[in-house]
Structures are given as C-alpha cells and as structure tokens.
C-alpha cells in the first residue's frame, strides 16, 4: 500500500467544497433538523428516535462519501489519467485497493461529525461499547459501499457517473430506511428494503441500542454485497485494461 499516494488522494477529496457541503455537512445538518423535530420520540418497537436518526444520517453520509470515489474513478478513466498511472509501478490490484481504502477514509468524517453532534447537542446517550458500534462498527460496515463505489467507477463513464451515483444514493437512502424509517413502513416495503445493503448498514448501527435489530444477518448480507461488487469491479477493470 502506497501511503503517500493515498494521503494525497484523500487530501484532494477533503479539499473539494462540493464534497464537504453535500456529503459531509448536509447529513449533519439534516440530523440536527430531524433530531430537533422527532428526537424525544421512540418507535413502536422501543427503539429511541434520537440515536436512530444519528445512525441513519451518519450512515447516509458515509455511504455517499464512499460511493463518490466512483466519480473520480470514472473521471480518471475518461481523461486518460488511468493510463498515466499504468506507467508507474502501481499495479491494477494496487489501484483498486487504493481506491477502496480511499472510499473508507473519506467516509470517516461523516460518521465522526454526526456522532459528535449526537453526543453533544443531539442528546444521544449511549454506553461506551454502544458508541463503539455506532462509530467504528458503522464505519467498517460501510465497506460494501466503498467497493460498490469502485465498481460504479468501472461501470459508468465520466459523463454519466454523476447521474448514476445520484440515482443510486436516492434509491439506497430510501430503501435503507434512512429517509423514511423502516420501522414505520408497511410490511411488504420492509421486505424490499431488506435486499439492499443500506438497510443492513442502518440495521447494524441500530443493533447497538435497539431491542430488536439483529446483527448476524446484516453482516452476511453486507459481506455478500462486498463480494459481488468486488467481482464486478475486478472483472470490469480487467476488461477495460485489455481494451485500452
């Protein structure tokens, strides 16, 4: 792993105003708004709304950040920068690993920011181990989205990547129960939601404090998505390199 390369890449993302506003700041602001409106309530199953909203928005932001790597990959392919990278010692697997790691790195600020807001002004009170699950645990559970972002970068072109990731984010946000809590939707819709990785990302976060949320199924589904997205990313990357 080339740490210096990774650090330079991460710095470039973190400096991008659009990234900071839409991916990091927006979910944090939404958390404060929703928390102010519904923070004192609880769902029928006993889950407290405040920490649930915190998990939803931290997860949404982290997911968006992880997927955004796909945009830069599509741009690098389109502009010929990837060809330039192939004239360095960086290998193909090194590139894919670096981009996945980058996705994870840039997902971290959303988790940290929303959690910090939850703990300070959001009135969320959890035990130490519960905090560990909703921060570190949630962050690790973002991995399938990091890989999905890399796959998206291979599947899209520099001109349609923005639209594709925007659509994907809306679908994943809705079906993941991040916009409309999965606890209040009809049963059939909850079944649809359970096929998406975003549902299980949220569920994993909720498992820290919710009396009903399960962890094992979620981890299996998330691992399955990671594997599937990884296969797509690798296959498409190889085909792309062979065609270049």
């Amino acid at each position, binding site marked *: 792993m080339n740490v210096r390369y990774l650090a*330079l890449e991460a710095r470039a993302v973190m400096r991008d105003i659009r990234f900071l506003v839409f991916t990091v700041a927006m979910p944090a602001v939404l958390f404060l708004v929703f928390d102010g409106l519904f923070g004192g309530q609880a769902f029928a199953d006993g889950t407290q709304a405040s920490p649930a909203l915190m998990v939803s928005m931290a997860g949404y932001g982290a997911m968006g950040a992880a997927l955004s790597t796909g945009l830069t990959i599509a741009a690098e392919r389109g502009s010929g920068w990837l*060809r*330039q990278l192939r004239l360095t010692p960086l290998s193909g697997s090194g590139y894919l690993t670096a981009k996945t790691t980058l996705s994870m790195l840039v997902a971290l600020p959303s988790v940290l920011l929303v959690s910090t807001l939850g703990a300070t002004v959001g009135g969320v009170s959890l035990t130490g181990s519960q905090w560990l699950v909703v921060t570190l645990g949630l962050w690790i559970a973002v991995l399938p989205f990091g890989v999905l972002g890399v796959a998206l970068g291979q599947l899209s072109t520099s001109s349609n990547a923005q639209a594709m990731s925007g659509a994907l984010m809306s679908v994943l946000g809705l079906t993941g129960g991040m916009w409309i809590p999965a606890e209040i939707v009809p049963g059939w819709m909850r079944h649809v939601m359970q096929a998406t990785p975003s549902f299980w990302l949220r569920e994993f976060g909720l498992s820290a404090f919710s009396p009903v949320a399960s962890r094992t199924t979620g981890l299996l589904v998330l691992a399955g998505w990671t594997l599937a997205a990884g296969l797509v990313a690798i296959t498409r990357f190889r085909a792309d390199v062979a065609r270049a």
Partner: protein
Amino acid sequence: MTNTVVTAGSVVTAPAVRLTGLVKRYGSTVAVGGVDLEIATGEVLALLGPNGAGKSTTIDMMLGLIAPDAGQARLFGRSPREAVVAGQVGAMLQTGALRDGLTVGETVAEIAALHRQPGRVPEVLAETGLTELAKRKCAKLSGGERQRVRFAIALISRPELIVLDEPTAGMDVEARREFWASMRAYSDTGRTVVFATHYLEEAQSFADRVVLLRQGRVIADGTVAQIRAAASGRTIQAVVPNATLEELRRLPGVDHAEVREDRVTLRCGDSDTALRTLLDRYRDAHDVEVTAAGLEDAFITLTESDPEENR
C-alpha cells in the same frame, strides 16, 4: 543499470527498444501490421506518419499499455511492464490528461509517490519551469503549461527512455520551441527519446533517425538525410530562355522536367551533373536555385506510392 542480457555466456547490452513482428488488429482493421524496430540506447527517433498510420498503437504496445495480437515489445531486454516498474521508462501520452481538481504540485507529487521518489518533486518542477505554477489547479493551465506538467510526470523516475506521443500537439510556436529545447537538454545526457509526430519539421530538427509509418507498417527507416535522398534527390530551378521540354528531359542527371514560360524546374537524381550540363549548354540560363527536397517531399513521395495497392 541492468540493461544487459546474458546470451550464450556473453554479456550483450540490450537495445533500449526492440519490437519484433508487432501486430494489432481492431476488428477487421489492422492498426499495426507487423512492425520490427530496434532502437539503440541514446538514439533520438521520430515515428513519423499521417493520422491513422499506427503511431499511437505502436507506442501503446511499446509501453505495455495494450497487448499485441502477435509479436512482442522488449525494453532494455525485459518486458515493458518490468521496465516501467523499474522506472526506466517515462512517457507523455496523447490522451494523458490531467486531473482538473489537483494542483500542478499535487499532480507531480502523486506520480512521484507512486515511483517512491517523493524527493524528486521540487527538482522536476524546476527542470520543467513549473515551480511558479506549483500551486495552480490543472484546470487553469494553458495548453503549453499542461504539456509541461505531463513532461514533468514523464521525468519523475529519471527514465533512461522517454516516449512522447505527439508531444507538441496544442502548443503554440514559442511553447514548442521551449519544449524541444528542454527535450534536447534531456537527450544530451545520453538518454533515449522516441517521439511520434506528424510535424515534419520536428522530425527533421530533433531526430537522429526517422521511421516512417504508413498503414501500420514501416515504409522507411533511416537518418533524415537518408530518407530525403531515398525519396527524391534535389531540384534545380532556373530561368532558361529558348529551352524545349524535350531537350531538358534528356539532360544527364535529370529525372523529370517542367517548363513554365522560361522558368524550368528539374527534379534530379544527380543534380551536380545536371547543373554542369545545363549551364554549359544554355549560356543565358540565370537565376539558378538548387534545393534539397525537404522531408515533406520525401514523406509525400514515400507515402503516395503504395506497393500493396493492387492487393
């Protein structure tokens, strides 16, 4: 360095580039139809040819960016990828665009990081005159400045071989002159330079050796002087009153003659003999000019006649 291969117990220095029977097809189109080329260390070679001649495809195979359908490319006796990993090769690709969001300094630093030579950044920026522009975003660079950044990227690993695909495309005259000055400084250190161009004057002024490509094949290979000579010789122009076309055609050394008013144009295989005879026979001939055919003439002559046209 380790540019040596051991053959039958003796150590032989491998050429910088050795292409053997390289073929690349796209569907039914043959982009490169069997190119053999050996480039010695320290040579400055121009790959010259019209658009679609197969220059970029040849370069991509040389660099290991695309796999040939047949034949192989070796750089310094090893595979292109091995040479790239060893930092022996730098390249400016035609489509090697830069990332708009990165500054010049960051762009160069990323490539330096990947070559594990982060300390080279200030040096290379200075060598390419980019120190002042280090903090500027690539999106805000002029065409010539962008090319300089790409040149800087190519120089990071101190490559022994530098490959340039149409390096001056999009540069103005001044930028082009500056670019070639820095390229010359680089090649003067004994390194090998291969560049593709369709600017004849660039091949003429900067290359020791010119390889003409047409329809994916090498149709001529030699020094600029050799290629010129092979294609056409010299041209004599003069005002010769009362000369007939028939007489002029029969002058020794003349291959082809034209007369317009009193002005004659003689294309000569042996211009010295032709000129001596001309001045001897036509005492009132005046305003004589002898010109060597430019590479352009050679280029046109060579690329016009297609030996395989009747296939």
